[in-house]
């Protein structure tokens, strides 16, 4: 018995190494954390595309803007019809607490991680696009063509749906999302909304911020200042 257990252990042990995570980070996402962003629209400038370019580079997107190209983040110019006040802001997955995409996904490929990041499991997505119909922010894109030269950290796949992942691979490495890092005006503040000591936590307590389509009561992880 002992011999056979030992033999089994020897047989399995080298194999176990094959399953170790690529970055050696084994800690599971914690539900004590709620990752979020506070976007200061007064600092975001019309015509600046730093966040979009950073996202495309980090995630290996083509940067094309045809109707079939993936756009995980886009700049939207908005103008109040009655007052004429114009604002420029980045729009991406709002990482809702109650995400409609997760509700409607038939295979549970769309899911919310314990730390509030909404993701798509590319191995489970069947490409039905119901999440794209359900998302109130048009945050998701469908991969219309075969892909080449993908980033090892950002697996994507033809025929599946994708969206901003908050650069989850960077977060798990202790970095902040690429868009927040590259914004020249420091308009994007990223952090843990639940951590009382975090800058974002203190700032959302002190400044007035809004959620987009707050009427839908999705409790988005992204808040906007100056809207």
């Amino acid at each position, binding site marked *: 018995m002992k011999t056979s257990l030992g033999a089994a252990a020897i047989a399995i042990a080298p194999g176990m190494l094959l399953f170790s995570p690529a970055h050696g980070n084994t800690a599971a996402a914690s539900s004590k954390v709620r990752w979020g962003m506070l976007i200061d629209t007064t600092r975001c400038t019309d015509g600046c595309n730093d966040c979009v370019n950073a996202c495309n580079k980090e995630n290996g997107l083509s940067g094309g803007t045809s109707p079939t190209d993936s756009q995980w983040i886009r700049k939207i110019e908005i103008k109040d019809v009655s007052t004429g006040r114009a604002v420029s802001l980045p729009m991406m997955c709002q990482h809702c607490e109650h995400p409609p995409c997760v509700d409607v996904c038939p295979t549970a490929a769309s899911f919310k991680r314990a730390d509030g990041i909404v993701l798509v499991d590319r191995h489970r997505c069947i490409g039905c696009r119901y999440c794209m119909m359900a998302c109130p922010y048009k945050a*998701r894109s469908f991969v219309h063509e075969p892909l080449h030269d993908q980033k090892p950290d950002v697996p994507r796949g033809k025929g599946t749906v994708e969206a901003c992942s908050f650069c989850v691979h960077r977060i798990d490495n202790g970095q902040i999302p690429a868009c927040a890092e590259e914004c020249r005006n420091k308009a994007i503040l990223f952090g843990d909304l639940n951590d009382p000591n975090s800058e974002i936590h203190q700032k959302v307590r002190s400044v007035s911020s809004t959620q987009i389509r707050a009427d839908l009561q999705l409790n988005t992880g992204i808040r906007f200042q100056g809207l």
Partner: protein
Amino acid sequence: MPTLSSLRLKNFYFYVLLAAGGLVALAGLYAVHMMESHGHIITGMNNQIVWGMPHVFAIFLIVAASGVLNVASIGSVFGKAIYKARAPLAGLLSIAMLAGGLAVLMLDLGRPERLMVAATNYNLTSVFAWNVVLYSGMFSLTAIYLWTMMERRMNPWSKPAGLAVFAWRFILTTGTGLIFAFLTARQAYGSALLPPMFIVLSFAWGLAVFHVVQTVIYAWNEKALDPEILRRKKNLLGVFVIGSLYLVGAYHLTNLYFAHEAAFERFILLDGGIFPSLFWWGYIVVGSVVPLLLIYLPGMNKPKWVMTASLLVILGAFALLYVFIIGGQAYPLDIFPGYQVSSTFADGQIATYQPSLYEILLGFGGLAIAFIITTVSVRVLNFMPQDKSYIAD
């Protein structure tokens, strides 16, 4: 009495029809292969119009598959003899159209090879996942229902089976309507009126398909349908078309009443290019008013007029679904109410959509699957309605 040579000729025609259906189905499969190898880039669908022509065909087939069973229900549940004689054919058409519709829906997926994933991972909050259960349940229940009707020893069970199918198809079409009704963020959808609207539409579309198939089968077998039966059935179609108009009208009127939906309604009903034309000319005039005239004007009792009215109802159905599905997505999603918006991702712009040949081939492939199942089954089994001499119920 048919002669041997006329039977041989008919036999030949049967295989020609089957081959034609098979060719169309093959063309559909070719489209699927192309979409698989090149991706959805070769379709007209994009990140704004995420559901396109395949969904128009699939939803028509699925909704009509549920509605055609109305014929069976009136027979089995409400005991009307002329409908009871037609229940097996209705059951067959339901299975055939469900198969065609589901095939289109599944083959349009970005990853159709992951069907097993869809079958084994259920997200209980997803109405799509509910529909997977509802559709497969419908298949099995209708198959059992057919068995209870066609196997003499099982006849006593046909009433309970018919009752189960009756309840199931209501839930099924509710589920189809809910796919859209749950999309609260989109102006075109997110209305509680959609499930009942789809149910009434299913009655009209299902009965129209039934009439077409019945007319063809009677002509093929050189039989004449009792004019009284034809009169009752065409009047029923008229009632369903009026019912559909009522619910489609109520849906648009309620939208018009909400200030935030007014611009969307203006787009669909007035200035949205192809969509208002398809709605008014396709659905209202060709798909509803003309069929109603053909049904209710005196002297229109010939089978060919009922057949024409039914074909027009089917055409109108496609027009309405195109407006509902494509038009509903083409109108920009209102992310910032009260603001003018623009971006590289078509925010604030009407999305454009040009269906590609592949999508249309896939849609027709679904129709062909339904056609083949029906044609073969009608030949090998006895689905011809067997009427006793007509007695008013």
